[in-house]
């Protein structure tokens, strides 16, 4: 059971006739509070650098603003690729690439915990999870994720995730992933 679901159960027993903060104090959730702190930090404060889409990535980021996850697909090879490139990594042709919509479902392939991040904007959030997700459509295709909501270093490798979209510093939306089930 994750600390977050423990907290959810605790909240469900809230009688409704007292101050929620007082109610909170009735129980010792010190462990949980630490994790909840991490959770809040990640969800509320972890704002990524803004993104300025360019020619190659315009389709990807426009879809993200519409709440859709798309991947580059070569029609000739029926093969997905990420990161996007000017040509298909298999047939080397630029003529058959299109953006294909994904289900937004995947798995956690692997993860590390970042304690010393080169990106200034993320340094206040250290340490944070940095996982690699694989897509259900093709487990060879990977994406990064900070796994918002997952306590630091408590990452269920192999666990199922689904996509969500998160606003970056300049308002551009980017895909992120949360643990489900």
């Amino acid at each position, binding site marked *: 059971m994750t600390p977050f679901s423990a907290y959810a159960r605790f909240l469900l027993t809230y009688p409704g006739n007292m101050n929620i903060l007082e109610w909170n104090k009735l129980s010792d959730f010190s462990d949980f509070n630490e994790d909840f702190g991490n959770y809040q930090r990640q969800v509320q404060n972890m704002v*990524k650098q803004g993104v300025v889409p360019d020619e190659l990535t315009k389709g990807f980021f426009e879809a993200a603003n519409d709440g859709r996850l798309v991947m580059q697909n070569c029609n000739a090879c029926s093969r997905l690729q990420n990161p996007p490139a000017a040509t298909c990594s298999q047939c080397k042709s630029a003529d058959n690439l299109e953006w294909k919509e994904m289900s937004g479902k995947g798995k956690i392939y692997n993860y590390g915990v970042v304690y010393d991040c080169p990106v200034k904007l993320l340094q206040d959030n250290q340490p944070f999870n940095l996982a690699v997700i694989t897509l259900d459509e093709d487990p060879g295709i990977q*994406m990064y994720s900070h796994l918002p909501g997952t306590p630091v270093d408590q990452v269920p490798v192999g666990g199922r995730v689904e996509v969500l979209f998160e606003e970056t510093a300049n308002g551009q939306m980017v895909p992120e992933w949360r643990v489900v089930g």
Partner: protein
Amino acid sequence: MTTQNAPASMYRATEGLGVWEHRGKVAAVGVGHSLTTRRWDGRPETTVGANSIFALRQAIEDAGVSPDQIDGLVLDPVTTTGAHWPEGDPIPMDVVNAYNQTDDPLDGIAKLSAEWLLKNMSELKNVKYTMYGQGCMSHAIVVAAQAVGEGRTHTCLVLKGWHNLEGRYNQSGISASDTVPGTFALSPGRTLWGAPGSYGTALQFAEYCRKYGKSHDMMAPFMENSRKNGLRFPEGYWAQHRPEELTEEDYLAARWIAKPASLFDNDIPIMVSGAYLFTTAERAKDLKQKPVYILNHASSRGAQRSILPTLDEVEAETAATGRKLYEGAGITAADLSFENMYDGFSLFHQFHLEGLGFAGIKNGEALDFYQTDISIEGPNPILPSGGNIGSGRSRFWMHTDCIQQLQGRAGARQITGVKPEIGVSGGPMPMGGNFTVWSASPD
């Protein structure tokens, strides 16, 4: 005319090429190093250009050739450790004016061209062949070996220099910016998600530990051994500036950078230049030092399917590198007396070892192997150079050590548990690098 990058045809990057056509016909005969420093102190006499001139002159003197006999120069023109000259910062003209300059004022300070070196080493009157092996010393060595083998140059200097400026590694530029271009945001590197340099290797190591039931603390004997050997390397950073042993306790207490990679799993960026002198086996016979013969060189050019190489992809690539090295050198793993594969990050050294099948180890066995005697006194010396974990990030200690071990002049590092006959060095990455097989004998 400006110097070009070596064409892909100079690298032996595929299997099935057979024995190297110049096997045993190219020899290393001279070694030179500058002093090491953590960063540039702003003086003209400590630039990457100055350090490189010093190292080149040492290599020439060490080999006992006269400078006018040198007809080739192969180097890596990119000298950054990750630090770049800050945009808009004034260029120190006193430093620029201390040398004969090319048309780029940062040449010799934050990069290094063959032209700059030739303008500032008037004794090199007869250099006709210049070429870049861009990446690190491992590239330059391969290009120089091939060039000497093909007769493009007869007596060739090989150089790698590094500059390191103030400021934290990779933290300036785009890392400090409020926005990034879309292509960068989705690239496999540090991107929007903020992966540190060691992150990719840390993840491969994590997968390795899960698959084979190993753990990070099993790295401790390797780390201790590397620092111990590094402290016996008078040319190295730790020996010169911080002669401290690294204990298991120190290692296990180190702060994380990208867990499971800790501070010590990263090699420390430094300034240093290193140089070698290569010539034909024929000419090498009557020079000052015992020649060390190159039996083969091979390159890996692995490409991952998506963002990060998986353990399967890494293991396939390092195994292919091992096969290429043995095929071209006409040897087997059992012929290796010691190994000096790259280690900066420490957490991928086991991939190199297992790919080579060094000392008979197979995939998943290297961390257990680290618990046995891997010292210079033992039967299977691992990184007698101390590598870059033991001496700072030059990415050439491994090559220097191979040459010196086989010449019998590695000093306090000289391996004693086994007769040094054939060694292997190279790097940097398991998925992409250049590797050389060195031998005390041309046969």
